[in-house]
């Protein structure tokens, strides 16, 4: 039977899911973890078919966990449970290895999403894992301040810098600002890392909204 790994720091939610999931005993098995660190331990020791995670958690948060999963288990599809689902995020549904379920949800709704994801398995063309675009949208959604590092073979290392969920700067090799951001959004098969933001102040190099930037990247890609 398929193993699902569910990660959330809310004990009330975990108790509720445990009680309610008894009736899906013959459909899937599951592990519960209360933060990213516990989840990574389970990912190291068990075969997991699907990851279901919250984003805001202590120690290692959901984004850190997704970055880890993307790097070491890129074949595991993910469902993100979020209280701040945005319309632009919802559009990625079904197309991606990454799906969203908006809080609040019933145990039944989550069980259905889990069973559908297990049945579907890996969507075609999703071998490159979670896209950079998805990560950028989640950082914005969670209003995070972070340094997001992008590594690819054959390309120079790049960085995105977010402050309170706003994209402030990007650097990729010799490129800076909007041009660097667009170049990195277009890259497939990347390894990403979250770094602590540096102590010193980073000047703002991007004033364009993230959605506009993503549209611009898509437009240029279409034009070839």
């Amino acid at each position, binding site marked *: 039977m398929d193993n699902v790994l569910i990660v959330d720091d*809310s*004990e009330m*939610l975990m*108790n*509720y899911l445990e009680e309610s999931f008894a009736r899906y005993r013959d459909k899937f098995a599951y592990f519960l973890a209360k933060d990213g660190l516990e989840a990574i331990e389970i990912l190291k020791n068990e075969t997991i078919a699907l990851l279901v995670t919250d984003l805001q958690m202590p120690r290692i948060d959901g984004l850190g966990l997704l970055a880890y999963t993307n790097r070491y288990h890129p074949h595991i599809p993910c469902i993100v449970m979020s*209280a701040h689902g945005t319309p632009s995020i919802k559009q990625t549904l079904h197309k991606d290895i990454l799906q969203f379920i908006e809080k*609040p949800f019933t145990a039944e709704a989550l069980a259905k999403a889990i069973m559908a994801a297990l049945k579907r398995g890996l969507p075609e063309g999703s071998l490159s894992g979670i896209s950079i675009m998805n990560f950028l949208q989640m950082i914005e959604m969670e209003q995070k301040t972070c340094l997001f590092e992008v590594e690819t073979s054959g390309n120079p290392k790049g960085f995105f810098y977010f402050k309170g969920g706003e994209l402030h700067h990007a650097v990729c090799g010799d490129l800076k600002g909007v041009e660097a951001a667009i170049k990195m959004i277009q890259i497939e098969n990347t390894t990403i890392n979250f770094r602590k933001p540096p102590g010193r102040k980073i000047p703002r190099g991007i004033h364009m909204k993230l959605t506009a930037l993503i549209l611009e990247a898509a437009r240029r890609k279409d034009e070839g």
Partner: protein
Amino acid sequence: MDKVLIVDDDAQLLLILTEALGKYSGKFKVMTVRDGLAAIKAMQKEHFSLVVTDIQMPRVNGLVLLAYMARNFPETPCIVMTGYGTPGLEKRLARDSLYYMAKPFKLSEMAEAIISHLDQHIMLGGTLTGVSVTGFLRLVEMECITCLCEIKSADGEKGYLFFNGGALYNAFYGELRGEDAAIRLLKMNGATIRYKKPPQKKINRQIKRDLSALLAEAEGV
């Protein structure tokens, strides 16, 4: 039928509670709201037999709601849900007629608490008292709140208790300051309480003893 109002900013928790308490729809109805202001508005519109509330919420928090209830619905019992449980606290609050449940709690425990409160209320013919001044102050302490509590006696005399991070720092009553003012305020009969935002300017600490010691002295223990 009895109606129960549940107040919490966590929408997921509200949904879980609504689903779990749906089993008791023959006994009581549940309405949920996301903050204290919505709760006050709901209470103004319809009658609730019981209020279940969280304390830490954005905009209008649970303390504002409890102070409002103590003034306007003193007979409505209340169950407080909080994440800041300390041993022995349940008993202390129970004495002050505030029932308390530490998160995370079992859903069945919440259902039992609600039913026992509703039954008790009928049994006592509606004499169960709601939020008391003492119960309110103990919550301020427990939740580590910084605020100014206005205490007003039945004949209109008023004074203030200042809490900083849950510790009673100072009290003001006429010309009195510090512990003397606090004890006079805690001794007031039929007092009502109002929750106020802390003032911008710094207030010095003039009270060293903790709230329990002062309450004991005020009660003449």
